[in-house]
């Protein structure tokens, strides 16, 4: 999971392609600064949302001449004084941003301008030099790596579906929205230049929009789209993202997005910016304190189909005696509300127990509990994870962690 979720090839698009090709995206940066010096004040002739629908840069246009004369030709490129997102200079004057920086205890090396950039979603500003897409890609990979390595070391026997669900519960978009809201980050009603940089800016979905249908219509990056029915756990591991969901084929960054995706992008981008400015350890500590410190009831994520058979296959695989259900205690067998307490025994050792209103229910519950206690084995909450070895003061040699042979197949 960890190696796959890093997806180095997916970072490279935005981070590496910009310096290689000279596009017009460089020019407006300079142009913009020049204009700001000239005009000196914000012009508010257009509404914010109208501006954001007119992206200021044609990214497809490649200036192959390299002389840059065409950049200042007025007829082909009309002077646009309106930009979709606030200028970096406004970040220094925003009390909201400064308060957020202080409240989260962010490192001093992380400038306010970068924090402001993490709050601009690609749907608000399509220019990759001013939105948080690249930072979110980096930060999302870092966060996903730390969560998955912690899960794998802490619960080495988790089945794949539970691992996906646990990763989703720790760093899925819904949880990241909760986290960002607890940090006190609000959304701007509509993105625009005049908005305070302390607000999260993105193009909101119209109420009642069926986003799942839009996303499904775009298609996924799976190569087996014609064999859509071949979508088991193994194919999710190979083709899909860290939560077992399909990866959308093309990223229409200018389209409106749901609030949770925008919040998730912000949290990821903030982690990415901490990594870039303050280093690997700071980013790891941040993930630990804000994401991994949360309490997850991981035992509620299990869903079994045939627990009794699965348990007997487990015992056969591990060389234990065949599991037997035995009645530990019971009350009111002939009454309207009987209660049976059934234990599952392998030889003389009790593996688990459960109680229910019928013998069948109690036996099922006991088998489920035994299986859960097998899958939820943990060597300890504070086990060392592989990335701990990269810490500067780490002297002790690495002890291999427990690696399980996998879930029970029955």
């Amino acid at each position: 999971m960890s190696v796959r979720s890093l997806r180095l090839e997916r970072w490279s698009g935005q981070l590496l392609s910009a310096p290689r090709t000279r596009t017009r995206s460089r020019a407006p940066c300079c142009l913009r600064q020049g204009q700001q010096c000239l005009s000196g004040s914000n012009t508010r002739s257009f509404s914010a949302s109208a501006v954001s629908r007119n992206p200021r840069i044609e990214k497809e246009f490649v200036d192959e001449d390299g002389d840059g004369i065409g950049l200042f030709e007025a007829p082909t490129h009309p002077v646009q004084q309106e930009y979709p997102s606030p200028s970096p200079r406004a970040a220094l004057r925003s009390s909201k941003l400064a308060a957020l920086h202080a409240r989260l205890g962010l490192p001093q090396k992380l400038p306010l301008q970068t924090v402001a950039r993490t709050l601009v979603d690609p749907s608000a500003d399509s220019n990759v030099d001013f939105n948080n897409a690249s930072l979110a890609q980096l930060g999302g990979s870092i966060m996903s790596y730390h969560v998955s390595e912690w899960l794998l070391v802490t619960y080495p026997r988790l089945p794949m579906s539970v691992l996906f669900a646990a990763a989703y519960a720790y760093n899925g978009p819904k949880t990241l929205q909760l986290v960002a809201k607890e940090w006190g980050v609000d959304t701007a009603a509509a993105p625009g230049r005049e908005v305070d940089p302390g607000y999260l800016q993105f193009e909101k979905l119209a109420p009642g929009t069926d986003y799942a249908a839009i996303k499904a219509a775009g298609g996924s990056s799976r190569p087996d789209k014609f064999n859509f029915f071949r979508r088991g756990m193994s194919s999710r591991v190979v083709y899909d993202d860290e939560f077992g969901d399909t990866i959308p084929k093309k990223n229409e960054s200018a389209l409106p997005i749901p609030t949770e995706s925008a919040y998730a992008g912000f949290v990821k981008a903030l982690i990415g910016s901490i990594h870039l400015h303050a280093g690997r350890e700071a980013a790891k500590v941040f993930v630990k304190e804000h994401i991994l410190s949360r309490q997850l009831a991981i035992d509620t994520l299990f869903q079994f189909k045939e627990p009794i058979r699965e348990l007997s296959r487990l015992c056969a695989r591990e060389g234990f005696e065949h599991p037997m259900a035995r009645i530990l205690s019971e009350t009111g067998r002939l009454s309207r509300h009987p209660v049976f307490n059934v234990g599952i025994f392998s030889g003389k050792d009790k593996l688990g127990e459960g109680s229910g209103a019928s013998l069948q229910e109690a036996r099922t519950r006991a088998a489920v509990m035994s299986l859960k206690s097998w899958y939820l084995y943990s060597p300890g909450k504070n086990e060392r994870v592989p990335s701990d070895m990269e810490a500067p003061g780490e002297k002790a040699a690495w002890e291999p962690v427990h690696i399980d042979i996998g879930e029970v197949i029955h």
Partner: protein
Amino acid sequence: MDSNLIRRPLAKIVTNKKPCLSAFSTTSRQNQESYRRAKQRANIRPNSSFLESDDSPANNHIIFNPPSAAPSVFNTPLKFLPKEDKRRQLLATTQARLAPTSTRLPPPVQRQKQVPHHHLSDADIKEIQRLRRDEGSVWTNKKLARKFNCSTMFVSICVSQCGGDNLAWQASEKARLDKIKADWGPRRLMAHEDKLKRMEMALRDA
């Protein structure tokens, strides 16, 4: 495990608060008419572990008397610990001390059927498959198991390869059950739905 993805409402399972034992959802209320009666009722004799006895230690000591509770899935049984785990040694000594002296186990839920294994030849298996294929309505799994003295599980594995399709039988069975269900009134229907919900919850042990 189920091969589908599991998605539960996150607000219920992810919190930033540690679980707190003393958080009661219901407020305690005095239902007794008078303080005296309530006090009388609460005057319970303490557990014997709280009382001083001749063999209790002379100095200050810790009384370990936890309230009875359902066992937690996070306490891995000794048998499930991997061989290199350090807790194995500790738990083994504790279990040896706490285990009851009598070796009698509680009674089983259902008596194990003494069915012989690996006693049917290929000809027998062919015969099972022929009977099911030709006279499927008569030779049910149960009857075949009784005739050949094997388990119904084994019969079901044999007949799954016999080639005949039992779609017609499945359809007739479904029609029969649907007819029975159509006669149910609202109370029985609700009881049936509740039962299905209970079994689904039992599969999660929720």
